[in-house]
């Protein structure tokens, strides 16, 4: 009997939908639906395609960060330097373009810089045995410093129209399928699949769940850790460039606290910061809830002081709700 249940669990769409409905994520889906419903009632412009585009666009950078942080958290790490690195990447791209480099070369260079940076962090973590918390706090300070140094503290204008396409290109002329939105969704889907279905993805869970066991099971913790930080920092580099393209400027002071938005979304979406637990789909829900909520508060013209309170309260509420649901489910069984 056990075997047959196992077999029936296929990976088709219908089944996936069913799984979601009975999964851990259901309370998040509900929370999201409630938020959308309430704001739609309170403001008629909330539930419109135009607003959806606006929310998705502003979520595009945070989305990339959320994916990267979710992967890292599952692997029992985190990266607190991505805000600085995103700013640095935008500034670096803008400066390279100003030097007359073509857009393609610029993008590749900045991505490569991101990869190197990720490798440096991974080196500190795997070889020098630092905790990723402290290594990336240090890196945050360093990269912010460099962002200011290379730009001399000023925003750097971007005029290269090819590069600016990263901010405004519309696939098939569709205004909801701009490059930032498309790329974010692509990254979610891609890493959703990688995490769930590939060997590499599985190894992230194993490494995050019990690194000692992972090593003895022949998994290279080094390789996994390097990959995780490189992925995170490449996503950050691209995200930073997309932001710069959207703003037409690389800005050294941009993205302060970006890492927290990403980590918060991931944790709200059920990713554990103790390693080994979580999914990209959950992280996406976490992101959707946070962004949908923030956007609604702005649209309702809630005073910014109260916005702070409301956001914090939302987080606590959502997690409490989730806890109660899980507890009830346990009892029900």
């Amino acid at each position, binding site marked *: 009997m056990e075997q047959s249940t196992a077999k029936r669990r296929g990976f088709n769409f219908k089944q996936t939908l069913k799984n979601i409905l009975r999964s851990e994520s259901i309370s998040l889906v509900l929370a999201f639906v409630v938020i959308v419903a309430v704001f739609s009632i309170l403001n008629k412009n909330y539930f419109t395609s135009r607003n959806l585009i*606006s929310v998705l666009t*502003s979520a595009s950078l945070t989305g990339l960060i959320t994916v990267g942080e979710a992967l890292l958290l599952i692997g029992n790490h985190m990266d607190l330097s991505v805000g600085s690195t995103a700013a640095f990447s935008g500034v670096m791209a803008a400066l390279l373009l100003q030097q007359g480099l073509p857009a393609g070369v610029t993008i590749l260079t900045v991505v490569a810089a991101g990869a190197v940076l990720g490798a440096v962090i991974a080196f500190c973590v795997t070889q020098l045995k630092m905790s990723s918390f402290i290594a990336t706090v240090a890196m945050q300070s360093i990269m912010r410093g460099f962002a200011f140094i290379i730009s001399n503290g000023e*925003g750097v204008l971007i005029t290269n129209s090819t590069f600016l396409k990263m901010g405004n290109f519309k696939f098939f002329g569709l205004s909801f399928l701009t490059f930032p939105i498309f790329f974010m969704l692509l990254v979610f889907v891609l890493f959703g699949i990688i995490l769930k279905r590939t060997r590499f993805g599985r190894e992230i869970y194993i490494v995050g769940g019990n690194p000692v066991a992972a090593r003895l099971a022949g998994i290279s913790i080094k390789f996994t850790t390097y990959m995780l930080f490189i992925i995170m920092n490449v996503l950050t580099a691209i995200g930073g460039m997309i*932001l710069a393209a959207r*703003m037409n400027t690389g800005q*050294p002071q*941009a993205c302060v606290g970006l890492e927290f938005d990403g980590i918060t979304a991931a944790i709200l979406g059920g990713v554990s910061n103790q390693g080994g637990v979580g999914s990209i789909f959950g992280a996406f829900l976490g992101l959707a809830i946070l962004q949908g909520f923030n956007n609604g508060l702005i649209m309702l*013209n809630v005073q910014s*002081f109260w916005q702070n309170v409301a956001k914090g309260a939302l987080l606590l509420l959502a997690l409490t709700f989730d806890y109660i649901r899980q507890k009830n489910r346990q009892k029900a069984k």
Partner: protein
Amino acid sequence: QPSESSSVAEPAAPSSSAAAPSESSSEPAAPAEDIIIAGIYKAGDQQWFIGEGEAAKQKCIEMGAKDFMFIDAKMNPDTYLQALDNAITQGVSGILVCVPDQKLSQVTVDKCKEAGIPVIAADDQLLDESGEMIAPWVGIDGFAIGQAVGEWTANYAKENNMTGEDTAVLYLTMDQVSSCVPRTEGQIESWGKVFPDWPAERTFRSDYNGEQDKAYNAAAGVFTANPSIKKWIVMTPNDEGAAGATRALEAAGLDKESVVCGIGGYLAKLEFAKEEESAFKATAFINYVDVGAYSAENMMNYLLNGTEIPWEFKTPAVMITKENYKEIMKDQAE
């Protein structure tokens, strides 16, 4: 009251600019009860912008608008752009903005132009690549304000004979906030005019992030590094810096012979309200009520009557001290 005379009222610049809807105005006159104005401010949690927003709101409602939306961009370009999109989505009639970074000017103007919504820059100008203004502006001129501080301080030093070997100038700077950089530049310039030969060895700079305790650390470090200096002349780009430097002087026992001058008024007034006089002698009062009310008035006049929006209005910098601050700040002195 905004006194046009005291401001540098350049004649309206070429009207090619997109967001100056002055003559491209197709249907300026709108029924007042439908008008909603959005104010998007780079740091909506700062007292400055709260006051500015309140003044703008009051003016708009007074002139018959239906609503005024106050939006905080939290110094975050992304939040700012989302706020702008939002305002446009909600179909506001006019937008007042203070951008978190002036490099966001072009995007702002482009988006408003596309949606056909008039925009006025508040506090910080909207500038193109070459530094030309691309939208009407009501605001503060950081450089000029800095100059006023430099001048006042230099005169104070002269009057009090603070020129000897035991005296030094300290500029606390906020290099990471672009709108604050010209303030320091203005201070340096007018100080240099009064004391062209002021020695470089007795001129110091120290950077902080805008918070008072960081200013304290930045100043205290310089004070201890130079024990031969007994009299300090400190100029800062905001009131937090001035208050922090003052506390550091007090801790070092140097406050009696020193002078600190800031920019703002919001913390200076607390300082002036104390019985005992501190080293924090003066600040350049920049009046958020003026900026808020005047930007709103211009916008409403345009929307209601099609009156052209004046291209430029600078709120004057007035130096205030313990003696005159109540008079000048009026309500804001409370």
